[in-house]
């Protein structure tokens, strides 16, 4: 019978916290950039401008047809030079930088599909009403359509954020010490892999379960009006 020994966890807390910060950083950047870039893609896709909407569709379908873990690896292996060239030499850990870029671009594809559905859930007459008042199509999208679309989408966007938060653990493939990566390394070092991974799993569970409860609440609230 396996003898549990949790004693290496308390000492590892500072390291684990540092790992959690990286996990949160990747999640936050992927959510913010993913939603912003995803909105651009969604608007491009339904713009009716042939070339724009085809390019956006190609982008979305490409990223949605490839496993995330491969995207993370590609960006790490292929683009460090490019990333350095764009963001300058002072970006620090190239693994983190490439993971941030990979997640943001990958999540944007998923967010854009959610946002596209949200935009299409707004009645068409709203666009006509905006145009009839003298707004340009762009202004109508920004001031009239998108605010309503995002209201309808809040629960789905948050659900996607929860999935994304869990998926950040995949950065272990490029040796990045996020929360999961740190737990793994500490467990490996101390010969207590089982305990550390159980503990890490519990932490993920608590965070995600709490977040999904909050989403349920929001859903109920938005459903009323």
């Amino acid at each position: 019978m396996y003898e549990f020994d949790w004693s290496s966890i308390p000492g590892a807390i500072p390291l684990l916290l540092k790992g959690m910060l990286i996990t949160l950083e990747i999640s936050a950047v992927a959510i913010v950039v993913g939603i912003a870039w995803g909105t651009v893609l969604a608007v491009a896709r339904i713009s009716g401008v042939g070339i724009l909407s085809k390019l956006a569709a190609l982008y979305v379908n490409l990223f949605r047809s490839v496993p995330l873990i491969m995207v993370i690896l590609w960006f790490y292996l292929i683009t460090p030079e490019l990333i350095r060239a764009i963001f300058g030499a002072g970006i620090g850990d190239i693994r983190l930088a490439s993971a941030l870029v990979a997640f943001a671009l990958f999540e944007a594809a998923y967010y854009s599909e959610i946002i596209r559905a949200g935009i299409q859930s707004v009645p068409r007459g709203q666009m006509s009403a905006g145009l009839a008042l003298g707004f340009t199509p762009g202004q109508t999208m920004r001031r009239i359509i998108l605010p309503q679309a995002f209201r309808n989408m809040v629960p789905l966007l948050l659900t996607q954020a929860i999935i994304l938060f869990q998926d950040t653990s995949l950065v272990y493939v490029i040796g990045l010490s996020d929360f999961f990566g740190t737990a793994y390394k500490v467990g490996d070092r101390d010969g207590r892999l089982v305990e550390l991974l159980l503990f890490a799993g519990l932490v993920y569970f608590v965070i995600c379960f709490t977040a999904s409860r909050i989403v349920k609440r929001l859903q109920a609230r938005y459903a009323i009006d």
Partner: protein
Amino acid sequence: MQLIEIQNISKWYGEFQVLTECSTSVAKGEVVVVCGPSGSGKSTLIKCVNALEPFQTGNITVNGISLSDKKTNLPKLRSRVGMVFQNFELFPHMTIIENMTIAQEKVLGRSKEDALTKGHALLKRVGLVEQTNKFPGQLSGGQQQRVAIARALAMDPMCMLFDEPTSALDPEMVNEVLDVMVALAEEGMTMMCVTHEMGFARKVANRVVFMDRGRIVEDAHKDEFFGSPRSERAQEFLSKILSH
């Protein structure tokens, strides 16, 4: 002077021709009612007037400005042409007063105070000043449509377009909206109204345009239209609608 001049316009959706060589006009201060059976192209025609729908041939001018001219600033033109929709189309995420002011501020560049003053004055005029801070979803259909009319008027339009403004309303709310429209007509507003409210047409219309299958079949002074419609289709339509 003709404020709205529709010259021989035709429009297709793919193979399907929705409008066939439609011509009519609305003079300044005139009220023209457009009617006809469902699917005859009334909404399409009226949406062509403020370029919400493109058309392939013919031309429309509004206040002398040609819609087919590539140089025409369509948003600017639309800002001066009021439009009221069947389903109100208030912005549900904004309060009533925000609905009234947003385009005044962001399109016409009015100051916030000016926009609010104008908004309140118009809400008062349509009898809804107590609803200022509510959201559209909290108002009845009739109230929402009155706000929609006030919202259009806030832009100081040179003419107003109505697309079946009362047909989504419960019967007991039709009159409150028609009353606002009648008052507007009596003040001399230039109006083009798609409606089946023949009482309204008799009261304030100058002319009635009757459409059938994408064509303007009859375009007559209202007395002539109600007295002795020339086309069989219009007679049929009138007898059907009046017997209701």
